[in-house]
């Protein structure tokens, strides 16, 4: 990024209201050329509406949408040069797989001077479905249909690929395999892709950048690691992965470390040392969060220690999730050894693993 190429898509102050409810509220974001950009959030957060606004299926109530640097107000979907893949694929059931993939080539010449048949074959090969052109799409498996839908969307050579939860109808294992394949195809073609999902793990795994949405607004935009490590809001901290959130009062600031006094329900404040990666001052009330995988089980290994009780233990194979009670609060830790429910457990974290949230 930082190149002089025009952004592939840009929304400026875009809102979409249905009667009294705002599905999208004053949304501004820029998507760079060639980027794999993901909108993630709980259902009803406005991510699908945003995608539909970009595709031209809906018109914004206010604001401006640009595709390739041009304002697309009033431009119908068929003239936007976008490829769309829906959750249920929406394959045309009365056409063969090949006819589905070739449908968009009725309106645009295949890119690179190929013939229609060549282009269809090329796209089907790209998604590993070389031999299926004559088949009936209803005879395919869910994963195959999803790839046909992708090939169909890509066939006319769109400028922008819009994917609306394309994996959510598939089972978990298949989903993981397909997302790797999708990312490979996207990188190979270099096509700007906007991906909508409610699955935060998928969002982190596949994207160059992720926008976390809630109530029609973008809470935070950034690279997956950045969002995971330094969530800007409580919502992002808790939506992306799991987190232990604690609040308290800043009692001292010393260079890169701050002391935060947490007051548990039972009264006696406990002080923790946390990395002061934000400008905090004494007496500020702040939230900080510690990821479960950073909450180490065992005494004497970390700077901050908490004496907790194991309440519930879930063995997950690669790891073990331990639900802890610490002075009336629930905490979550990951352990690499067996722990008995009811056992007294000491857990701890290093100051650099505690991230202080800005006040909201």
């Amino acid at each position, binding site marked *: 990024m930082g190149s002089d190429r025009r952004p592939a898509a840009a929304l400026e102050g875009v809102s979409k209201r249905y009667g009294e409810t705002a599905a999208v509220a004053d949304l501004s974001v820029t998507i760079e050329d060639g980027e794999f950009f993901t909108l993630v959030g709980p259902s009803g957060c406005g991510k699908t509406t945003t995608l539909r606004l970009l595709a031209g299926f809906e018109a914004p109530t206010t604001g401006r949408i640009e595709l390739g640097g041009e304002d697309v107000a009033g431009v*119908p979907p*068929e003239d936007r040069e976008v490829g769309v893949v*829906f959750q249920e694929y*929406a394959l*045309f059931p009365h056409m063969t797989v090949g006819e589905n993939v070739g*449908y*968009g080539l*009725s*309106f645009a010449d295949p890119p690179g001077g190929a013939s229609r048949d060549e282009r269809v074959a090329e796209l089907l090969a790209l998604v590993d479905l070389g031999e299926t052109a004559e088949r009936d799409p209803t005879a395919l498996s869910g994963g195959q249909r999803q790839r046909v839908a992708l090939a169909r969307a890509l066939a*006319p050579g769109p400028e922008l690929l819009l994917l609306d939860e394309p994996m959510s109808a598939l089972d978990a294992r298949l989903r993981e395999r397909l997302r790797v394949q999708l990312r490979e195809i996207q990188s190979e073609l270099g096509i700007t892709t906007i991906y909508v999902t409610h699955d935060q793990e998928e969002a982190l795994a596949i994207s160059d950048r992720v926008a976390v949405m809630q109530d029609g607004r973008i809470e935070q935009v950034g690279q997956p690691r950045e969002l995971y490590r330094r969530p800007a809001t409580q919502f992002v901290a808790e939506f992306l992965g799991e987190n232990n959130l604690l609040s308290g009062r800043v009692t001292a600031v010393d260079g890169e470390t701050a002391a935060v006094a947490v007051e548990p329900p039972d009264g006696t404040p406990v002080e923790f040392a946390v990395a002061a990666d934000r400008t905090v001052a004494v007496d500020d009330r702040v939230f900080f969060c510690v990821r479960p995988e950073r909450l180490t089980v065992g005494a004497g290994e970390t700077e901050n220690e908490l004496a907790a009780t194991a309440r519930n233990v879930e063995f997950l194979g690669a790891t073990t999730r331990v639900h802890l009670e610490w002075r009336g609060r629930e905490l979550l830790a990951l352990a690499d050894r067996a722990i008995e429910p009811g056992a007294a457990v000491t857990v701890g974290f290093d100051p650099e693993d505690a991230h202080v949230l800005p006040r909201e």
Partner: protein
Amino acid sequence: MSLAPARWLERRAIAGLAVAVTALLVVVFYYPVGTVIVEAVGDERGPLAAFAALLRDPFYFGELARLVAGESPLAVGRDLLAGDRRLGVVGFTAYQALLSTVASVAIGLPAAYALARYEFPGRRTLRSLTLLPFVLPSIMVAVGFVAAFGEDGPVNAALGTVGLSIDLFTLEAIVVAHAFYNAPLVARVVTAAWESVDAGAVETARSLGASRSRAFLDVVAPQLLPAVAMGATLTFVFTFGTFPIVLALGGAEYTVLEERIFRLVQELAYAEAAALAVIELAISLGVLYLYLRIEARQAGGRTARPLPRRRLRPPELSVRALVPRVGLVAYGLVAAGLFLAPIASMLGASVTNAGGVTLEHYQFLLERQAEGAAFQAQPLPAIRNSLLFGAGALAVALPTGVVIAVLTTRSYRGRKLIDTVAMAPLAISGVVLGLGLLRGLVFGVEVGGTRLAVGGAAAIVAAHAVAGYPFVVRTVAPELETLDAQLAESARALGATRVRALLDVELPLVWPGVLAGAALALALSIGEFSATVVLATGADQFTMPVAIERFIGRRLGPATAMGVVLLAVTSASFLAIDRLGGDRGGL
């Protein structure tokens, strides 16, 4: 982005079609009906004088007219309860419609129960056949009833052996004939509602302690009631606007509104006809509005799991297993008699006379064809006219209906209104529409000094198209509604304009609905009588139903023969449309 002119046009095709359909409906429906209303309120005595005169006339409103004239409601009420009360034409029309509605619901409900809750060979066929009476020409059914229940008819002969008989030309005959038409309609609507009851809901009620009958009352019945109400209101609208049945079965004793309006038109008393038409219209529209309100409240959506069907063969010899099944079989026999007797009797009567089997009735048709005078109804021109008008009506009704279905499928502000306005022809009877077209289009309009008028034939096609397109809408719209909206959106994103997406994706997928609508529209046109008889300016425009009506006045035989010809042509048209569907699936 610059666009080629063809693309520019394509982009606006849907809007263009919407404008064209609106213009068409204005010309062939709203303007003609409007002229009737204008004529009715345009009385020189004042805008409402014509209605006031009608309302005070006991000939139309019976005892109720005295109420309007200022008599005490108590006295009127007492007289209404008396045995010799006078209902008047409007009162009788509503009364027979009410009785017909009750009879149709009573006969339709057991059929719905059997079709929704029992499994038996031929169930699917029977379910499809419930549509059939609806498209059978009413004048032909009337001939069938005359043949079956007339003095020499086989049904009365059979009933006579057990000391019973149904008199033709009585209210009972009218009501039974109306039930023949509308009971299947009630059965159809209620069966659909019954099939959409979720078995899980009933099972939940049972598991919470409700008995079988409580679960039925609390869970099933509330879901059936709106359907029953829908079937009843539609039946009322249809039978309130009845004409050929009463014309053929009512004799001189009974007159309904449609017939009275028709007579007034023949006597050139257009003002009174118009005022009466508006009163009929107001009542029908009121009931149709009720229907649309109930329909709108019906929850859509797919049923997770319908109630399981029971086998008709009793699983055990217990009272609980036997009573409903024996009842259904008894009902089935009576219903089969009701529905088969008229058709069978018509077929039988067409090849018999007092002396036995004969072809003389068909010979009469041939002779009439060879030697008939110009003013007489002739078989071949009637067949030709029926097919030509049918094809013309189909050519107008099918695209109109499809466009309206497309426009009313997507949700937008004002859609309800458009839906209602587009469905209004359902409430307009044939005679009233015929009257409007006659006054509005056939007599012509003055536009910029030139008189524009259309011929009777064109007006007949217009009337048939107006009567047919709502059925195209009603067969196509539900299919479009259930179609995944993302199919069309995918096509749009791939570069298809709205109209291309419609042609390439949506229409092929709702093709069975389009075909069903086409078959209905064609059959309704071929069987249409009321508007045709108003608009036909001479024997050269008579259709088969009009020819039947001309024959039935003299002798039953030729009318039944013509009825058989009509049945054959209607069936052949139906089959032709089914064949056109090819492998895309027929009706």
